[in-house]
């Protein structure tokens, strides 16, 4: 089997599906290659939150601000409902040092035009009626965040792209790359050779493995993120709530240490998603360690005693990509002509529509709407 395309996208998660749609829309003959089914990695195991609270503030603010504007017409563009709704974001503060950290954060985000406020504990119930504020100093509050249904969004991109001629290859791992004097010529897959002059890697946590096949050592690692899912109930939670401790510098922990960083959201279907005990790992196992069950549920019932009656129905665990400087790997590789990366985003949902456009812009050599020089895959001489 030999098939020729203009561009091949590797990875059918948020970014890969958005990129595939925008590439098809730009008139390119596009193939999407994925080792599993669509949305199989971190894209199936997340809250679907369109959040700015998680963002890296120094270099990403232009990108995030632009990305936020893309949601107003998203459902219209895709011709499908993606479960879009507005929720707020709350970062709970337990210690004085976290308060200081959040104060700095508040002033920084306000300089990029994003409004947030510090709410003292006694007023927390006005924004989140179910919270038990005892034991908290307060919280940093973003009124304007949002949520989508991850599967509806990814599916909508695929359906729209399919209408424009996308070829999809699922259960098809990439086994190698065809190179010719510094140029990419195609990918070798379990289903045969696919030829294309442009390859876009949207492979999240698996990007480093693909890099090894190319002799590139990109600075992309992963942590395992987990969450527990409860039975559904009426939509009562108004915000996505996470602990400010997420922003405290991590101590030197052994890989494999479970950290019960408190983060909860209610899904558009009413399930309470509670997590996320994260730990850095060297393996791609997808089990949820038994300690997570008690540590995560204890951290949730601590602030939300009302949820102690909820029963946990299931759990998930998935490798989530991250980079040392919290900036994504986005742009052309300097090593091989025709190779592009779009992986390692810190908060993926918010940038999904924008990065799809950006990838199409990169491949067609169009004009980009924001500066990607801080995100180039080979910045800081990570490549050898």
């Amino acid at each position: 089997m030999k098939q020729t395309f203009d561009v091949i996208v590797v990875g059918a998660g948020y970014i890969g599906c958005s990129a595939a749609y925008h590439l098809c829309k730009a008139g390119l003959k596009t193939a999407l290659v994925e080792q599993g089914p669509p949305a199989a990695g971190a894209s199936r195991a997340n809250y679907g939150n369109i959040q700015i609270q998680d963002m890296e503030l120094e270099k990403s603010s232009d990108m995030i601000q632009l990305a936020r504007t893309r949601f107003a017409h998203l459902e219209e563009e895709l011709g499908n409902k993606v479960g879009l709704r507005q929720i707020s974001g709350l970062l709970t503060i337990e210690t004085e040092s976290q308060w200081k950290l959040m104060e700095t954060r508040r002033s920084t985000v306000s300089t990029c035009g994003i409004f947030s406020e510090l709410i003292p504990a006694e007023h927390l119930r006005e924004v989140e009626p179910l919270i038990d504020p005892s034991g908290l100093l307060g919280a940093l509050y973003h009124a304007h965040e949002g949520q989508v249904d991850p599967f509806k969004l990814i599916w909508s991109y695929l359906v729209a792209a399919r209408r424009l001629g996308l070829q999809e290859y699922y259960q098809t791992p990439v086994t190698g790359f065809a190179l010719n004097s510094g140029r990419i010529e195609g990918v070798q897959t379990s289903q045969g050779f696919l030829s294309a002059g442009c390859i876009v890697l949207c492979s999240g946590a698996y990007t480093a493995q693909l890099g090894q096949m190319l002799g590139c050592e990109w600075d992309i690692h992963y942590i395992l993120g987990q969450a527990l899912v409860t039975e559904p109930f009426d939509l009562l939670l108004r915000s996505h709530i996470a602990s400010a401790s997420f922003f405290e510098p991590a101590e030197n922990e052994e890989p494999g240490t479970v950290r019960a960083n408190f983060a909860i959201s209610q899904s558009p279907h009413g399930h309470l998603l509670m997590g996320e005990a994260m730990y850095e790992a060297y393996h791609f196992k997808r089990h949820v360690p038994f300690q997570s069950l008690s540590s995560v549920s204890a951290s949730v019932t601590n602030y939300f005693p009302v949820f102690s009656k909820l029963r946990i129905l299931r759990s998930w665990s998935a490798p989530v990509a991250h980079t040392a400087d919290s900036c994504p790997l986005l742009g052309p590789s300097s090593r091989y002509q025709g190779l592009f990366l779009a992986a390692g985003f810190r908060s993926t949902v918010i940038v999904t529509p924008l990065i799809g456009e950006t990838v199409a812009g990169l491949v067609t050599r169009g004009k980009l709407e924001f500066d990607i020089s801080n995100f180039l895959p080979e910045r800081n001489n990570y490549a050898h």
Partner: protein
Amino acid sequence: MRIKRSSSLLPEVRRGKPVNINVDGKPVEAYEGETVAAALLSAGIHTFRLTQKHQHLRGLYCGMGICYECLVTVNGVHAVRACVTQVAEGMQIETCKELEL
């Protein structure tokens, strides 16, 4: 509906000891070793719960603890899987009970 021995040519139906259980306040026939789902279906109760959003009817589906469709309230504990829970003496079972937070 339960299987009855309708002919002497058929093997005998063997059951555990009778157990007293209540479903939505009414006594229901049940035997030791049966699941809650078996007792409910034998009593002609097919609707175990209503879906949270649209109040659609749900009952036994996979029958092996995977799909979480057959959730009932047992002795006040919400969302118990009827298909993998055995009946016990004095059990109070409620169907279609809404979760009260």
